[in-house]
């Protein structure tokens, strides 16, 4: 699954950094009908988990009320250098993951 992650390459100790994520996904609601009158099955990214050095930093449980091509922005404190991992899964079981390194100076 295509996604973009924005994590600053480096930050000062204790600085608040902004993390952004954008994932290409239709977030199909299950309410739409195709040209043949058939209901298009619901398929949304229902869980997203962000970890830093293995500890969960942020997680989201999302429903069909989240707009297509979901975008999320939150803020974390830079304590130590390490790797952020982003993992998400949709209703069909398709998984996506990304990693980004933060260096604390």
């Amino acid at each position, binding site marked *: 699954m295509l996604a973009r992650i924005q994590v600053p390459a480096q930050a000062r100790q204790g600085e*608040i950094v902004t993390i952004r994520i954008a994932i290409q996904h239709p977030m199909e*609601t299950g*309410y*739409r*009908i195709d040209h043949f009158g058939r209901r298009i099955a619901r398929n949304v990214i229902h869980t997203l988990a962000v970890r*830093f050095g293995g*500890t*969960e*930093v*942020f*997680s*989201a*449980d*999302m*429903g*069909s*009320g*989240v*707009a*297509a091509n*979901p*975008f*999320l*922005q*939150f*803020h*974390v*404190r830079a*304590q130590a250098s390490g790797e952020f991992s982003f993992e998400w899964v949709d209703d069909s079981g398709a998984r996506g993951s990304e990693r980004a390194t933060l260096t604390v100076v």
Partner: protein
Amino acid sequence: MLHRRRFLLAATTLAAVPLLAHAQSDPRRLALLREITGGPLPAAGRVLVDTPPLADNGHSVPVRIAVDSPMSAADRVQQIVILAERNPRPVVARYALGPLCARAEISTRIRLADIQEVVALARMSDGSWWMGGTRVIVTELACLEDG
């Protein structure tokens, strides 16, 4: 800092008074709120829902939730829930904020199926729940009007 916090608290409480008043009169809303919190009714205040008053398109409405909280180890926001009661599925998203989250502030884009109040709930580390909301006018509706 303390002045700003007091002001924010007062401002959001004032803005939320009609919200709470309405909440007290609508049994369906009360039931939904209790279901989300697991019992207690959220107090009005401390939660800012920043969203355009007139949405371009209900399929993608930018929302920023900001909760007034020191976000210290002892006093922080643990959970934020976004509600759109006039959507076919009122609970839009739930977010859990871990110990590294420095601000109780989230931005995202949601779908709105009708003109309504976008409500956000916040659960604090002391177990209390707070809420705030903003009314959004939508002309093109998501979910129920096919794009």
